[in-house]
């Protein structure tokens, strides 16, 4: 029986009129919840990070009810979870490498030297070394997204939450990023638990995602 990494219980969202949303994401798996703009799937990532509190129901992350957390506990919890927001959210006045380094500098006990080493590895893995000193406005959309992925996984979190992560990307680039976020394979499955929300997903990525939830016509459909 796999550990439950993320559980939504009776969450009210516009896409499910008659019932609350209840679903589970198992540890070491990747899961998507897809739905139209009006379905309300885009708030699930923020519920899972306690950035928003649901009006009803609760969200459990590794068994802990995060809606009960104090602000400082919520901030400390988020420093252990990778997050890629829909609008990427890179700081416009920092270079790509400084953006990637930020969660390491703020949320880890690593020394400057260790952070630099980790940074070099991440930038090389995401193929950003040549543009690392440029600011977000001076690089392509794909490079911005790569930098946001590097920032989300730089401190090696066990859970990564992504909102519309592959929007506007080629299938090949999307597949590459998904593999980096999964972080390799272990006997239990992927090394990290990956939770993706959004409108759609490139079809070729589906085999690399263990659980697919879709909200359509007022119902939650699941496919594994």
């Amino acid at each position: 029986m796999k550990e439950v990494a993320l559980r939504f219980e009776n969450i009210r969202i516009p896409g499910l009129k008659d019932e609350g949303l209840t679903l589970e994401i198992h540890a070491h798996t990747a899961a998507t919840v897809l739905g139209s703009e009006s379905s309300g799937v885009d708030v699930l990532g923020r519920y899972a990070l306690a950035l928003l509190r649901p009006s009803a129901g609760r969200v459990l992350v590794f068994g802990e009810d995060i809606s009960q957390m104090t602000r400082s506990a919520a901030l400390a919890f988020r420093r252990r979870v990778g997050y890629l927001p829909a609008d990427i959210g890179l700081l416009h006045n920092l270079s790509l490498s400084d953006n990637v380094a930020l969660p390491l500098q703020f949320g880890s006990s690593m020394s400057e030297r260790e952070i630099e080493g980790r940074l070099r590895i991440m930038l090389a893995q995401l193929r950003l070394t040549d543009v690392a000193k440029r600011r977000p406005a001076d690089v392509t959309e794909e490079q911005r997204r790569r930098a946001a992925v590097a920032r989300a996984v730089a401190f090696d979190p066990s859970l990564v939450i992504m909102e519309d992560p592959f929007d506007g990307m080629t299938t090949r680039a999307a597949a590459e990023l998904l593999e980096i976020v999964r972080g390799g394979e272990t006997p239990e499955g992927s090394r990290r638990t990956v939770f993706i929300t959004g409108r759609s997903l490139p079809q070729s990525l589906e085999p690399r995602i263990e659980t697919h939830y879709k909200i359509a016509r007022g119902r939650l459909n699941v496919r594994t």
Partner: protein
Amino acid sequence: MTAPVRAVGRGVARTIALIGALARFFIRTLDAVRTLPRAGRRVTARVLVKQIWFTALQTIPLIIILSSILSFLVISQAVRELGRIGATEYIGRLMVVVIVRELGPLLTAALVASRSGTAIAAELATNKVMGEMNALEGMGIDPLHYLVLPRFGAVVLSTFGLTILFDLVALFAGLVAAMSGMSPERYFDIVLQSLTFLDVWVTLVKGLVFGAIVGLISAFHGLRISGKPTEIPIASSQAVVGSIVAIFIGSGLFVLLSI
């Protein structure tokens, strides 16, 4: 008939609400010093140093120019006018009260507000418009820790340091202006005799308080926007106007308290 009363009432209520929101923001900013995570101190210190570079070091030439021109104009006129009635010893008190204690902190803070306050408000408003606040929160980084606290601290320290610089430059520019009517020894003698411990104390406290006012109001207006790009210039304008009005009111309160 009651419309003007209602309009005045609404204005007063808005002002009280604004002051309340500013007070809460100030308390949260001070509390951010306590809650800043150990790992984040290095990054916050780096942002603070960078902001001091923009706010203090890049402003030094401007402070030197403004302070020396102002002091030269006031003291050269005073030497001429007071010399006619044989009262040049009052130049010392004039220099200390008008320039060192009143105009020095006031003009320095106004300059910091118009130069850095607008930039801080615009930068924080841009952070908000571009979804960077949400991203910071999502990474577990409190925007107060990373964006507000270092900028607030840098503006306080910069305004304090620039006020001291303004006054020192003014003292020496005053000397140049006074040399047409008295010797350097006489000038320093009457200026230093006029300078009391209270004058120095009030000037330094003003530097800190006015810096806190500019830092606080600028960050407050930058973060107050709802997230539309059109609000960025409005935030900048509100930051500079609000800061200058608050500095002038503060200056008046200092005068009332010292009477």
